[in-house]
């Protein structure tokens, strides 16, 4: 007997077909909105310009002047990420202490739930942290470039603002997630809140806090490269300039440096986090 073809026996063929048609119908207007047109890439003149640009990638630019520029840009990127993180910590740590329920006095006598008025007082801090982190860092950078001028200052401020929001929220959650008993015991015995935090919460939370901070530093390096595209200094700004000048060999060097930097930060962050365990 002849085996019927697999397609004919597929019992789910009709629903699958209908789902595909539905998805296509939903995506169709998107096709017009996003002006998606792959053919543009294969147009002769576009191909020629791109070919010339990519063709210049090898060899990457390596004359002394450019290497000097590259070193400055790389150091600037690293310094932006580090300084931005340091400033972010200045805001994040106090905000996390204020926003966290771990140090609530009213929660002690209410089975871990702070009084409603105390929660209401925490909300402004939480709201501030939400506002700080929900605007992407590159938007802050764009705004700060206009407020304080081109250069790394805008990038540092942008990282400081966005990352203080992220760090503050995560720190507050970490404080709440560790064992609360030592802190409560200290608070009930009459110690001050800061002392209870330092001796009750911090020893348990330190590992997680540090490892998250190091991870964020790694993210900050990536972010500070990208922020350069709006004029916030570092490798990104140099890459933007080189692209505008159509200098393929410089773009190639910059991309290679960027990759090396990301790999390095990744390795360093893994090393530091490994030491914490």
């Amino acid at each position, binding site marked *: 007997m002849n085996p019927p073809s697999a397609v004919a026996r597929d019992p789910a063929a009709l629903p699958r077909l209908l789902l595909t048609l539905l998805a296509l119908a939903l995506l169709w207007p998107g096709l017009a909105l*996003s002006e998606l047109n*792959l053919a543009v*890439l294969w147009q002769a003149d576009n191909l020629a310009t791109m070919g010339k640009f990519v063709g210049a990638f090898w060899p990457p630019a390596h004359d002394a002047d450019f290497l000097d520029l590259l070193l400055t840009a790389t150091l*600037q990127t690293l310094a932006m990420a580090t300084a931005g993180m340091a400033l972010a910590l200045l805001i994040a740590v106090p905000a996390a202490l204020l926003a966290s329920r771990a140090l609530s006095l009213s929660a002690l006598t209410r089975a871990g739930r702070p009084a409603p008025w105390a929660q209401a007082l925490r909300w402004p801090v939480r709201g501030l942290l939400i506002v700080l982190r929900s*605007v*992407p860092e590159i938007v802050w950078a764009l705004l700060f470039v206009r407020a304080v001028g081109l250069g790394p200052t805008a990038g540092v401020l942008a990282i400081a603002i966005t990352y203080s929001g992220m760090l503050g929220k995560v720190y507050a959650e970490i404080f709440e997630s560790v064992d609360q008993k030592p802190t409560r015991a200290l608070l009930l015995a009459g110690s001050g809140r800061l002392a209870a935090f330092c001796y009750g919460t911090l020893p348990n939370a330190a590992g997680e806090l540090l490892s998250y901070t190091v991870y964020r530093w790694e993210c900050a390096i990536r972010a500070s490269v990208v922020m350069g595209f709006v004029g916030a200094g570092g490798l990104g700004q140099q890459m933007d300039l080189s692209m505008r000048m159509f200098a393929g060999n410089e773009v190639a060097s910059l991309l290679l440096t960027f990759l090396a930097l990301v790999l390095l930060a990744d390795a360093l962050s893994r090393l530091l986090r490994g030491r914490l365990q």
Partner: protein
Amino acid sequence: MKRLLDLGLLLAVVAGVVAAFAYLQLDLAGLFSADSLRQMGQYAVRFLQPDLSSAYLASIARGALETLAMSALGTLLAALAGLLIALPAAGRFGRAAEALARLLLNALRAVPELVWAALMVLAAGLGPNAGTLALALHTAGVLGRLFAEALENTPPEPAQAIRLAGGSRLTAFLYGTLPGVLPQLLAYSLYRWENNIRMASVLGFVGAGGLGQMLYVSLSLFQEAQAATVILAMLALVLLVDICSSQLRQRWLKA
């Protein structure tokens, strides 16, 4: 000994931070001086009256839709391309193909979306097309790697059974492998789509369409009122996506 090493590490970190500030020569005192704070305040005040005229809101809505379309199509293209590269990357076509595919995926993933966008603006001209392509390229690298891992981890028996029963390789993949991994592939793709909506709203800074381009243009023309509206729209979009995804996640994870 460990103590000493930790202390050294701590000192190195502190030295690094100090060196960073010294290298950048940030004029923090000047930055937070009364004069400069007043100037920044004046600049910030101009954002407090967002342009809410209906004509502008209509163009914002169009920009937001453009951003959504860019992210959706970019992710779809990336999922297709990612699956195509994931097949060799999961070792289905021999060692050489595997190494090559993995190299390609790493390269696609290592370059950030914004850099791809700047490159695509050169290659395909200004506008959302460049943004869609940029998202597709970077996301293809991310999804391809995740897909390859999913394909490697799925049990091979159903596909082997089909092959032994005389099915073709394609049939074995479609009816033996794909049903097992499809939920995972969909979950990864949806997660990346969520990320890409956020990303698509800023890709416009290098000229790749969507809300970002509107923000860039209005800031360059010193139209702070319009810029404030765009920022609000971006925030609304991101918050909406966050709420939707967490709702959907809760519902689906419970089921």
